[in-house]
């Protein structure tokens, strides 16, 4: 059994900080590498680790984590050979002609139109993740906000002195019921990292190497961790490569972090559901609209899986997650094959593979999700679908192999319209293109009796507004980086 070195792993990789309802993601540039390294030499101690703190009152009211882009590590002074040992995806970043095609960032989601991370934006070097929680308040986001912002102001006062320049920040919020802006409870299903101390359904326990460098992954091999190939800095700080190459490992206890700012077009989403289910007199059929939306998502707004509750939302907030599709819904009559959740985590039902094989395949493409809401908190529904201003999700996930995990999910399981036996069905939430080519259809098929139904002309309900790939180093490596 693997045991993780929790005190060396930055906390956000292992914990979602759900009690910290307010957070600020600050994107910065390094203007003076020496000053930044001096700051790192002290600040690595202030980064929140994944160590379990049993007594609630001993948990700090603020949390801080840090991640670097490729150009950030370069600016900091990591040598070319060492930079070159990172994975190609991380080195290239989220924007390249091929990657843009793969991720489906076209039309209004094209990087040229992004707010950050795109070719016309100032390059991002690092991201500071600042969290706050008012320990007196009880799930009070306004109070958490004050704590978070105060901490941010404290940090910000030293940005210039630490050689940092703020490019932008995005405030990420959570709700007590964890509902996103379309109105659905989110973040229920997470892989359980072996050795993290968390417990849960056996099928959800994933080898640590799928998410953290330096441990074996689901294939029984070590992930492609960045190694020191050109000597620099205080190498005594770094652990050796677990695979035994004799090189020092800069990846161990770290991960790769994907961030994408996804605008949610709430009105488009619900107008479409309403339109497709309207009564004969054209009035909104709320129940049917909710049901179609639940089929599109894969869960009801409460979070209850439609696989187990096919007829209507049981209403109470649900965290039910221990279920399979093969077992309860082989034919997709409850949760359609094309639904967002079924296709991005098909559990025990991948294509026509058996249950065991399916679980194995599903688990080779898992990610740890850490999405937070931005914009004015809004809970969409068929009759309430006009939020105040732009709203969306600051999507964030951790994985050790961006290509096999995040990009695979976005491309193979979400963008490609051929999941299961489907023909023209992209992921209805994250796979729909703004414009189709001649003759191309974008449908959602609802498996039904006696015949399945086609819900045609899916609209794009997510617009990508920014994004980047980050390295999320261990505490030790932060310390090492200060010595390069």
């Amino acid at each position, binding site marked *: 059994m693997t045991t993780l070195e929790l005190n060396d792993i930055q906390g956000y990789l292992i914990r979602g900080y759900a009690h910290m309802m307010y957070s600020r993601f600050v994107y910065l540039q390094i203007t003076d590498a020496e000053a930044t390294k001096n700051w790192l030499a002290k600040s690595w101690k202030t980064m929140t680790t994944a160590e379990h703190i049993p007594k609630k009152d001993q948990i700090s009211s603020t949390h801080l984590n840090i991640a670097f882009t490729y150009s950030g590590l370069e600016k900091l002074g990591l040598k070319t050979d060492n930079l070159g040992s990172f994975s190609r995806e991380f080195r290239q970043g989220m924007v390249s002609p091929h990657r843009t095609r793969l991720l489906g960032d076209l039309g209004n989601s094209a990087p040229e139109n992004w707010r950050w991370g795109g070719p016309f934006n100032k390059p991002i070097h690092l991201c500071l993740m600042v969290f706050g929680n008012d320990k007196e308040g009880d799930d009070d986001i306004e109070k958490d906000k004050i704590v978070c912002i105060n901490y941010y102001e404290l940090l910000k006062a030293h940005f210039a002195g630490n050689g940092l320049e703020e490019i932008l920040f995005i405030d990420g919020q959570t709700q007590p019921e964890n509902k996103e802006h379309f109105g659905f409870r989110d973040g229920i299903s997470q892989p359980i990292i072996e050795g993290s101390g968390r417990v849960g359904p056996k099928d959800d326990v994933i080898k640590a190497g799928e998410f953290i460098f330096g441990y074996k992954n689901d*294939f029984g091999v070590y992930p492609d961790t960045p190694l020191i190939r050109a000597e620099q800095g205080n190498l005594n700080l770094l652990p050796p490569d677990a695979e035994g190459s004799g090189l020092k490992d800069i990846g161990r206890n770290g991960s790769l972090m994907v961030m994408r700012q996804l605008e949610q077009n709430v009105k488009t989403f619900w107008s479409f559901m309403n339109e497709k289910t309207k009564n004969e007199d054209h009035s909104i059929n709320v129940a049917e609209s909710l049901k179609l939306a639940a089929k599109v998502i894969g869960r009801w707004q409460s979070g209850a899986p439609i696989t187990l509750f096919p007829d209507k939302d049981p209403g109470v907030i649900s965290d039910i997650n221990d279920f399979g599709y093969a077992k309860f819904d082989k034919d997709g009559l409850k949760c359609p094959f094309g639904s967002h959740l079924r296709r991005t985590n098909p559990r025990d039902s991948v294509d026509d593979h058996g249950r065991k094989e399916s679980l194995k395949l599903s688990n080779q493409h898992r990610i740890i999700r850490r999405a937070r809401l931005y914009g004015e908190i809004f809970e969409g529904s068929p009759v309430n679908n006009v939020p105040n201003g732009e709203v969306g999700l600051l999507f964030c996930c951790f994985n050790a192999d961006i290509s096999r995990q995040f990009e*695979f999910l976005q491309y193979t399981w979400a963008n490609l319209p051929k999941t299961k036996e489907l023909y023209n069905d992209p992921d209805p939430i994250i796979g729909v293109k703004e414009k189709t080519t001649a003759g191309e259809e974008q449908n959602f098929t609802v498996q039904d009796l006696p015949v399945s139904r086609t819900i045609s002309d899916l609209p794009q309900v997510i617009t990508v507004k920014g994004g980047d790939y980050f390295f999320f180093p261990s505490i030790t490596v932060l310390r090492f980086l200060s010595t390069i």
Partner: protein
Amino acid sequence: MGQNSTTILVPIIKNKVDELLDLLAGINEGLAMGKPPLFEELNIIHFARWVVIDHGKSWINDPVERTPKLLFVVDYDGKETDLLRKLCTDSAELLDKVYAYCENFPILEKRTPDSRTAFLTNNVIKDAAVYIGAPGRTVRQIKDESNLRDFIRKYLDSTTWGNLSAQAIHQTIKNEVSSNGNFAFLDQKVKIPSVNWLGLIFLGIVLLVLLPLTIVLLLLVIVWVLVLHIFYERKDENFIRKRSQLNDKFMTELEKYEDFTSQNQFTQLVDMKEGKFRLFTIKAMFSLSKSLIKFVFVKGKLMGIPTIHFAKWVMFEENSRVLFFSNFDGSWQQYLGDFIDNSGWGLTGIFSNTKVFPKTNFLLTGGAYDEEHFLAWSRNSELVTNVWYSAYPHLSIKNINNNTKIRVQLMKSLSERQAAKFLKLI
């Protein structure tokens, strides 16, 4: 009608490689912009590709100086002689443009359908093993059945079906289709290939009856693998790079040709390890693959992989080199991920006989199962596919096989249960 695959390898005239590459790039760009190649009109070609090989350095720093060659790979309906004849007649203009840059192509005045055909025929190289995802399906049939499925789908969506029985709906669809002039092809009966259980049972009985011989055979295989391990595997030079350590420029070049539609191509070139022992092992693996492809992998899955349309292995230059080609659905990552899970044994058995492969033990462990190194090896030995054509880029192999099922079931008389199953296909 049966499907065939042909590989044609021709040396390129010295100093003409760059011009040829430009021409091929132009053709490929045309394809990407929806301009079909001349041979599309033949309506018998499923997939085709042109690949320039031995241009630049070999990936394992092979010291041999090699002449650049042009590889043409085509998967089609009918016989090779018919295909080449048609290509040399109806697509002569395109062929002439391309092969004008190649050695021994008839000079302008002597170009006739006959001389071109003779040229191509002379340069055909033999396949080692060919896999077809939808055996028996012609281009025509694939397109017809796709139209049929789309028609039925639209028809089903055009009205509500209330409480009609599945049988009644099946009959209604049948009537609707029959009254449509576009589907006259339905009069032709087609069969869906099935696993040859009888043959397999027969083989099992033979092996049982000849039990002593079977045991000897098994022992031989065991001894073989032991010898392989002790005298060969342990001395192999292994591939030890990971994906992060591959050449960036080359990766970017490969990516230029990928992920435009939901189908992709893969071309790979590797060198055989020296010696008869390795040659015998790979040939034995090809024979095994060929039998399995013929008797077992007939329903759209190659060693459990459900995404391949056409794939094949070719040995050339006196069995010293191996080419692998594939036309498949989805992304490179999924393709190889699938390989590892379902067919690591087959891939290891074949490719560990080629130079600089991830370390194997007794042909059973390591190799393709060593995920990170295998992915890197595979990507590293890949070649740029200069021109790639697919006759039906919008169809997955699952779609194609499903469409045939729909067609066959549509024309049958079905019980209520069968009819319900039929409706699920659409």
